């Protein structure tokens, strides 16, 4: 009943897997377009050129971190601001550390020169797409890369009209897009469900994260909740 990574197939690459991966992230495309356009508008207001904005989307490729970091952006940047940008980005993206750790049993079987470049395009969406695929016994790493690259292309392209047209997307929370990631995550949660035993750790993660979100400002709640839930789950022995 439970799928252990040990028994899952070894990682491999395939061309059809890239397309399959891209298709699996398709539910997130409308929201990604809206958020990227909104970011382009904010970046333009902050005085970033179109080229700089496209470059930031291409290199950083991290919606949540970019939206928080752009708030402290000024022109020109002081050393203090650059250090703030590093800190903010690292804190908001600290959840990527855990996502990378969870991919170790799978991608760790790849040579480092294949695993590390694949990880550089990790975002929430392709991580959960790949996690769900792996939980169902898949081994094709192209699913992970394809779903990430598809959203990367959209994230880079859609920022251009947002920057040029400006105020095109005033409020991404219209149509509920601010809830896009939680909604996609919870849909995927149903797919990675492997019985109540593992869910005890998930429940602890939720309770701790909720408490942390009330007590600690910022984005720490994901990491704190997930680590506590994972540790607790590790001490609940399988039969």
């Amino acid at each position, binding site marked *: 009943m439970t799928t*252990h*990574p*040990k028994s899952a197939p070894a990682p491999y690459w395939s061309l059809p897997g890239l397309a399959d991966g891209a298709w699996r992230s398709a539910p997130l495309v409308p*929201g990604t377009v809206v958020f990227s356009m909104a970011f382009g508008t904010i970046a333009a207001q902050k005085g970033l050129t179109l080229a*700089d904005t496209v*470059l*930031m989307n291409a*290199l*950083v490729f991290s919606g949540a*971190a*970019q939206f928080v970091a752009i708030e402290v*952006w000024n*022109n020109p*940047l002081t*050393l*203090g601001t650059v*250090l703030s*940008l*590093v800190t903010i*980005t*690292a804190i908001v993206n600290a959840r*990527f550390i*855990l996502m*990378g*750790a*969870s991919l*170790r*049993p799978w*991608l*760790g079987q790849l040579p480092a020169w294949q695993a590390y470049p694949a*990880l550089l*395009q990790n975002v929430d969406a392709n991580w*959960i797409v790949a996690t769900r695929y792996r*939980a169902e016994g898949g081994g094709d790493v192209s699913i992970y890369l394809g779903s990430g690259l598809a959203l990367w292309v959209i994230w880079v392209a859609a920022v251009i009209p947002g920057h040029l047209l400006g105020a095109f997307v005033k409020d991404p929370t219209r149509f*509920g897009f601010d*809830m*896009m990631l*939680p*909604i996609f995550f*919870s*849909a*995927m949660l*149903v*797919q*990675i469900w492997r019985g109540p035993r*593992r*869910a005890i750790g*998930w429940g602890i*993660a*939720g309770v701790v*994260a*909720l408490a942390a*979100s009330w007590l600690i400002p910022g984005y720490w*709640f994901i990491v*704190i909740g*997930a680590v506590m*839930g*994972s540790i607790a789950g590790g*001490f609940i022995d*399988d039969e």
Partner: protein
Amino acid sequence: MMNDPAIYGPMAGILAMAFATYVTRVAGFWLMGHVTLTPRVRRMLEVLPGAIVVATVVPLTAKAGMPGLVGIGVTLGCMLVRRNEFLAVALGLTAVSLTRAFWP
């Protein structure tokens, strides 16, 4: 303003953010390569993905209030009945918007 004479162009900020992001993207994977995957560690890693998901969803949903709760409820219900994430995401987002429109 502050005594902070060093001035940088936007490229410095972008590269700094890219660097910070790349470190978070590879650090966990790298770290776990130096940890022996005992059965207990393996179990922790098996619980971890769902724990990340729940630790993200619960606080963000609570913050979104009733529209968030309705949206997640509709999504989960749809997934349990139809197992179609395209439909589930579309209905979930619709539920959030509709609840926002009518919830006081």
